[in-house]
């Protein structure tokens, strides 16, 4: 049985740096030469790989989206106390309790929702198979479709690093992808 991987770009494309995850996911699709709009359902190009380039979900809604996948990759923004825009973090769901995002507090935080989904018999990836790549950002409160200049200046650098790391983490899924 083929392993199914879902990659999502999290964030808001209209709130300046909050769109960085969406930009990364869209960019990844371009690099993988995937046609526009590959979503759930048979991907066809890379078996078992599904990309949701724009996802503004959290909590229960996000868990509902990943039901049935073996692995989840989240590309997202993060704003930590002394973070430098353009630096990035990589962690798995095992450390989600200490992170500052992936939760829509309107319903339940992601760790709670994951636990709930598992108890309810959903087929969800293990914590170790939920990979989060989070880029430090500067401004997520201003309506704008462009990144902050400080983040834009480092985009090529962190995107390259993240994609290389991702390719190493998911060799079976991405080995056929040129240019990663």
């Amino acid at each position, binding site marked *: 049985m083929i392993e199914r991987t879902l990659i999502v770009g999290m964030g808001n*494309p209209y*709130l300046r740096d909050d769109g960085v995850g969406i930009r990364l996911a869209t960019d990844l699709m371009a690099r993988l030469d995937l046609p526009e709009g590959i979503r759930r359902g048979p991907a066809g190009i890379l078996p078992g790989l599904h990309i949701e380039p724009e996802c503004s979900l959290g*909590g*229960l809604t996000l868990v509902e989206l990943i039901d049935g996948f073996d692995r989840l990759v989240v590309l*997202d923004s993060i704003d930590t106390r002394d973070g430098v825009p353009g630096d990035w973090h990589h962690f798995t769901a095992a450390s989600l309790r200490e992170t500052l995002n992936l*939760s*829509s*507090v*309107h319903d339940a935080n992601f760790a709670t929702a994951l636990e709930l989904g598992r108890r*309810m018999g959903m087929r969800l990836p293990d914590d170790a198979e939920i990979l989060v790549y989070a880029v430090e950002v500067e401004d997520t409160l201003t309506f704008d479709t462009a990144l902050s200049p400080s983040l834009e200046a480092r985009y090529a650098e962190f995107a390259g690093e993240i994609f290389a790391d991702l390719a190493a983490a998911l060799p079976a899924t991405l080995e056929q992808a040129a240019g990663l």
Partner: protein
Amino acid sequence: MRSIRIDPITRLEGHGKIEIFLDDDGGVSDCYFQIPELRGFERFVVGRPIEELPRIVTRICGVCPASHHMASAKAVDGCFGGELPPLARKLREMYYQAHYIHSHIAHFYALAAPDFVCGPDCDPATRNILGVVQKVGLEIGGQVIKARAMAQDIQTILGGRSTHVVWCIPGGVSKGLTKEELERIRPMADQLYDFTLFSLKLFKDVVLANPAYVDLILNGPYTLDVHNMGLVDENNAPNFYDGKVRVVDYEGNEICKYAPEEYHHHVAEHVEPWTYLKFPYLKQRGWKGFVEGIDTSLYCATPLARLNVADRMATPRAQEAFEEMFQVLGAKPCRALLAQHWARLVEMVQNAETLKGFVEDPEITGPGYRVVPQRITGEGVGIVEAMRGTLTHHYTCDEKGICTSANLIVGTTNNNAPIQMVTKKVAQALIRPGQEVTEPVLNMVEMAFRAFDPCYSCATHTLPGQMPLEAVVHQGGRVVKTLRKNLG
């Protein structure tokens, strides 16, 4: 002067901070509920084609994207002359029922239920949806997940995609409903109806059967003497998608009833220097400050307010639930803010019945779901009831259809003043001189505004879900006590 800071607020959408100021004796002298506002939306949309706005505003809020989408689409319809075929309205309204159910389920089970099912003073580590499951049984969790998924599926079938809906376009919707799609929706609509009745019964079994909770709802500090706002149809029954805005005072007298395009004669917004968020009030009464009482110009726009302004519900089973609710509460309008959670469940019954009605409508799979607008009139106002309050979008555009202005009054914003007031009221009632401020006490302060299901978010993941809640007690310029709770 000591102050207690609760930051961040848990189980609430968006950044928030409560500052509680204590006098020298340890009683509450003042309380501010502050949130950083997002900047520049009006400037961001000016200069864009007006028909793009419904697609942009779904990103204003990840919690109620469809509410913004619908209000925006209606405002855009107005800019193009306002013609809309009857089927388009039906389809939009059908979609909106599923959206309501989807949101209300989450609020009740994940936000409200922990306080009631687990108890407002239980261990914060278990005071969440998992604690609810623990207490009520695994079966319930499965049903919640399943019902949420069905409500989501119905939206996906109708709107064509699961997130960031782009379905409403000027003069209608971009796709209709096929007979095959309708048959997929039919059993889900039936099951959602059953689930809404089940939820109502659960509320009765768990909450109403517990005298302490009923006492807390009816006799706790969670009441406010302000007025009520909500959309109603021609029979003064709640309609979430369309109608007139009715304002009724807390003694039951109608203050005004207006069509969406008249909103600016009735609602104005007051600005305070300590927050970016405005305070809407009834314009014809003038701003009178944060005061309760029959002459106040403040109002709530919430599920309870919507039922308070209604003479009846639009569907039979919801009508029964409505009558029973006000009978138990002992008054209509009801001022007990914690009854919001019950009102939400009554609304959900109407949502499900209305949804079933559309499934049975022989015209629902018809072809006439859009007319192409032929003129540009340049101005439109769209009002819907977002789950958390009356939502107004007001746009103008030039003769080429380019946006020249946008004004939004968001659901939660209506309740900004009442939330401030009730938070202070509850803090004053619970934080007494000489008494230690404990986590359960702070949680009960939070319950005051959680009842409003407030949403201050424009990105879905701006705030950690259940981060440690920190309360810092200051005295004489230094920290004398720090309280933390980790709900993760």
